[in-house]
């Protein structure tokens, strides 16, 4: 497994347990990580630092979820984004977000698959286009 040495990865998930675990995983493979409980906080932090890759949970809770989703989608063109989802059904919100993302993975996501996706996202950075794939663990 190629390490992620030097990469800065932002992880957005409102579940602390998931967020911290994904940060640990990326960190164990050499990446530097930032964790955000909400998209709003990520967007606010983007002014300071630009991560190489954003991993974001497809479900964005709260009354301004759709608005944040739109903003995130707009940024996904410039920052490689990987969407993860814990839902069975491919709800509209997942599809909408995945359309602009480099990959869409289903929880629980295996390290191999996640790291491959991150690598692909970072190396293809600037090349444009998107690949949507669901994890083989389903």
């Amino acid at each position: 497994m190629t390490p992620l040495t030097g990469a800065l990865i932002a992880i957005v998930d409102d579940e602390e347990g998931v967020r911290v675990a994904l940060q640990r995983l990326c960190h164990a493979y050499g990446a530097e990580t930032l964790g955000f409980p909400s998209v709003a906080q990520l967007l606010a932090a983007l002014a300071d630092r630009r991560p190489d890759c954003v991993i974001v949970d497809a479900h964005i809770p709260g009354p301004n979820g759709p608005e944040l989703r739109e903003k995130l989608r707009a940024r996904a063109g410039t920052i490689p984004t990987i969407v993860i989802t814990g839902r069975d059904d491919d709800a509209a919100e997942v599809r909408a977000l995945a359309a602009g993302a480099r990959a869409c993975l289903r929880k629980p996501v295996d390290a191999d698959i996640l790291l491959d996706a991150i690598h692909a996202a970072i190396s293809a950075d600037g090349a444009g286009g998107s690949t949507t794939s669901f994890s083989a663990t389903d």
Partner: protein
Amino acid sequence: MMLLGTGYYLAAFVGIGFRFQHSSIGVVWPANALLLSALLLSPRKKWWMVLAVVALSHTLAMGDLVPGWRVAWQIVGNFTLTAAMVEVLRRCDVLPLHFGSRRQILVFMAVSFLVPAVYAFFTPSVARTLLGFESVSSPTATILRVTLSNAAGLLLVAPAVLLASRYDLRGLADVSVARVLEGTAVAVSLLLVGLLVFFSGSDIAHSPSVVIWIFPPLLWAAVQFGPLAASLAILGVAGLSMLGTASQLGPFILDRSAQGIVSLQLFWPGIWLPVMLLAAVIHEWELTENALEEQRKQLNHVSRVTTVGELSGALAHELRQPLTSILANSQAAMRLLSEQRIDVAELRNIMADIAQQDRHAAGVIARLRAFLTKREPRCESLSVEGVVRDALALSRSAIDLAGVEVESWVPETLPQVRGDRIQLLQVVLNLIVNGCESMHVVPDRDRRLRVWAMSRGEDQVQITIADRGPGLPAGRERMLFEPFFTTKDHGLGLGLAIGRSIIAAHGGRLWGENNPAGGAIFHLTLPVSQS
């Protein structure tokens, strides 16, 4: 078999001891009822043993009174009579007899009269009167007497013996004190009324309506204690009336001829039919009630399964969160270990998180299992706060995925209510899920569900669930609670109907209305626990 032998001997003794004047025909011939019961209770292969025992007892009882040829004739005749009855009862499809249905009562009564009536033509007594040996009574009267004495014996004794033989004595251990007292009261009142009616002087015969007073205790036994008690009570009354009449007391001795005896014989079926019918009707009703109750339970369970089915996507999501955390944590730890970068503190944190996430997942499964388990409803004192908390926990993911914000305000200081935790959880959960689903048509920022509870007077607690959805369909608010009425494009339309029946069974009320400020409001009240 010993029991049968002794019983038959005693029964024959009673039959002989209490006869028509100037005749060898007993007023009641209970021995055949014992024979019938023995045949019904034993397999056909063992009937020869029954016959042998009965033949012996009959000979012992009758041997000194009538010539041998008549004893043999009687044995063969009685056996043929009862075997024929078994066959007729079998063909009428009423076996095994439990006297718990109207059909069994009516068929048994008819068979107890008709078969002995046919049999009467072939008895020695009738043969003798027909041939003119016994000139005291006419052949018609003799046939009538034989029929009635057999029918009376069969009706009075067979149900009591058959039902008592099937009674499970182990059930006695669970009988409550109140029940024992009530049973004793029935027995005592039967005895008192019986003594009053059947052992008063001959004056009583001039006011025959007094006999009707035997009915209240008999009906009491039938209504409260079922067919066995009814048959035993009738047997007791028959015994008292027989003893009274034999002592020249009570209402049946007005004229000391055979007519008085016939009226006694007709009295027994007259009380037997209504009392046994009543016990049977009540038994049938109880069976129907039990079946309905069972169906209600099944339906409740189906409704819970349906609710969980609707929540399945959300529940899968809820389980995927800890699974994601556990997988990522353990793979991070493996990577750290393989890199030989042993950071003990970090590994400890990882392990602690894995354990915590695992417990969280186990909690989700435990709640789900508790909710879905089929079990007998248990009435207990419980807090409304706990019910609402559990309902919100079960629907957490569904609420989250529907983008709904929940405000709940349930003070822990509310008085406790009495009820079944799972059933109440089912109702509240259903209302919460309905509320969340109704709001999928409104903009995200308006998806708010409010759950609150408060005391209503001294003796009620009210839970209210208000959504901001489109509200109840105008003019069809009442139909919401009809089974299979649904406004959703999935679901059975049972949730509210079952919810209403559950709350009603708890002594409370469930209703819905439109909120003037928008959305639907559902209220449910529950009586406060007295303990």
